[in-house]
């Protein structure tokens, strides 16, 4: 007769769970819910950070803006590009036209596109008088036109919407012809909002700044990709951290309930006394309880992580965007990196499952080392 790979104690533990199905299911569900609550904000933070970093990786290494006493100032496009390209380490420079305007439902970002040199990410190229809009802009869908108010008021013909999966990158954004963008934003012809610069080596992002600033005849502010990523990810991490901290009292309460349930379960010391009288060792009894707790813990962890995964990554799920970033009705599609699961998994295990296992095994150990005769004499029927 072949021996099973699994210990017989494991089957005892499963049978023990099946003896009290309601109690076992409630215990597993409580732990699963707790794991989900803990893991979801962390997983969302990780996923959004990964998405931001991947979006920014496709963007410029540095952004240069000119400033004067009134604030930021338009930058002469061709002259600035020529100055930047003359600085050692700059491999590409392009002037960008963009800014904020008032739309039908609040502030919108206008991005000017030159149809002769469209950026690779632009799937819709608007001609003069046309506009492509992001999916989150509230507008009259029946109307073919969209009116925006900047330095000038313009009514533009809507030619389409960006795909939903671009929502994180083009939040409340309008793509218009570069000349229209200049008119709406009040930029003189030949001027741009800022300069996007690429360098080959990431170490140059910081090192090139003094040379770049010195090359321009007017004061400039330079923002690196690392700084941009830091601004976005720090905000997300703060929100995720606050969410977990807020949840800690609830988690502790749940853990306490679970621990009390476990103690109640192990309070039936008559059973343990009987097992010891039948020849079970202390190790056998502790192993049985440990296997029982591990079975529940693993089921709850896997289930909880799965629910958290679905909540965060399901592409029709828009609540994380609403909850964490104040976007409305925005279906976010977040980038998935398997390593992003590691931190939420560790934290959920450490905060929820580990205390449960420690409480169970500790209580089991205390019971198991007691005198069996004393345990049998106590009437727990």
């Amino acid at each position, binding site marked *: 007769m*072949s*021996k099973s*790979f699994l210990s017989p104690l494991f089957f005892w533990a499963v049978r023990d769970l099946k003896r009290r199905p309601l109690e076992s299911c409630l215990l597993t569900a409580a732990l699963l819910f707790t794991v989900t609550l803990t893991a979801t904000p962390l997983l969302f933070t990780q996923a959004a950070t990964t998405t931001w970093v991947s979006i920014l990786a496709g963007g410029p290494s540095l952004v240069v803006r000119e400033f004067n006493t009134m604030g930021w100032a338009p930058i002469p496009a061709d002259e600035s590009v020529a100055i930047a390209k003359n600085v*050692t*380490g700059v*491999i590409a420079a392009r002037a960008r036209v963009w800014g904020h305007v008032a739309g039908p439902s609040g502030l919108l970002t206008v991005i000017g596109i030159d149809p002769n040199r469209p950026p690779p990410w632009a799937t819709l190229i608007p001609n003069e008088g046309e506009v492509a809009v992001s999916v989150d802009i509230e507008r009259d869908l029946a109307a073919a036109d969209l009116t925006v108010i900047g330095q000038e008021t313009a009514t533009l013909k809507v030619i389409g919407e960006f795909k939903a999966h671009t929502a994180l990158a083009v939040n409340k954004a309008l793509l218009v012809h570069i000349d229209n963008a200049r008119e709406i934003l009040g930029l003189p012809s030949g001027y741009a909002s800022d300069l996007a610069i690429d*360098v*080959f*080596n*990431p*170490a*140059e992002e910081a*090192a*090139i700044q*003094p*040379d770049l600033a010195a090359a321009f005849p007017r004061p400039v502010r330079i923002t690196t990709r690392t700084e941009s990523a830091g601004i976005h990810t720090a905000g997300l991490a703060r929100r995720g951290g606050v969410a977990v901290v807020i949840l800690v009292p609830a988690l502790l309460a749940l853990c306490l309930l679970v621990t009390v349930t476990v103690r109640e379960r192990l309070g039936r010391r008559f059973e343990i006394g009987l097992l010891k009288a039948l020849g079970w060792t202390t190790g056998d009894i502790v192993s049985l309880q440990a296997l029982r707790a591990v079975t529940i813990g693993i089921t709850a962890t896997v289930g909880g992580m799965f629910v958290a995964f679905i909540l965060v990554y399901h592409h029709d799920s828009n609540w994380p965007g609403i909850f964490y970033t104040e976007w409305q009705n925005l279906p976010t599609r977040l980038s998935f990196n398997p390593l992003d699961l590691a931190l939420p998994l560790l934290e959920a295990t450490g905060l929820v499952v580990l205390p449960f296992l420690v409480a169970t095994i500790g209580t089991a150990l205390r019971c198991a080392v007691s005198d069996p005769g004393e345990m049998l004499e106590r009437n727990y029927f």
Partner: protein
Amino acid sequence: MPDRIWNCKRCSTILCLAAMVALAFFIPSWAAGPGKGPTPGRKTLDPSGRMHIKATDRCPVCGMRVADYVKFSSAIQLADNTTHYFCSCGCMLRAWLYPDIFLAAVREDLKTPVVREYFTGDQLDGRTVFWVAGSDVVGPMGPALVPVMGEKALAAFKRRHGGRTVFLLEELDPDKWFAITGRKATK
């Protein structure tokens, strides 16, 4: 006693798993075979001298995956056009100094060293660039030996990152390497 272990299903499963893990570690070194030297890159340089690094290409000096450090990667093409890719310029220079140890090739077989210029990423012949040691640039193997092209780029690099020593590839020998790094190139 061995029979008992082997007849125990759990023990035999653990032993099998351990054997598989050990094989996974040692098969690559067996496959190379004694005396055959390191495995060259899967693709050689193209006619314009550009590198074609594949995910499986490993640095013959340190064993790291070259594709993970593309911005610092470099290559040596041998006379028979086989190409070895390196994770960093430091590894490439060590192989250039000691091809018999790291590439199982003689010095006369060394044909072209290819490096990525620090500022532009252009792929250039390593004999045409200035090499800077002792700067604050850190590569995959620690403090980097940085190739820069032209006097203007060299001045900009030294202004931004410092650098104790500037040399040309033709000036590099074991003594120079020791003076730059404080270690022998073979260690």
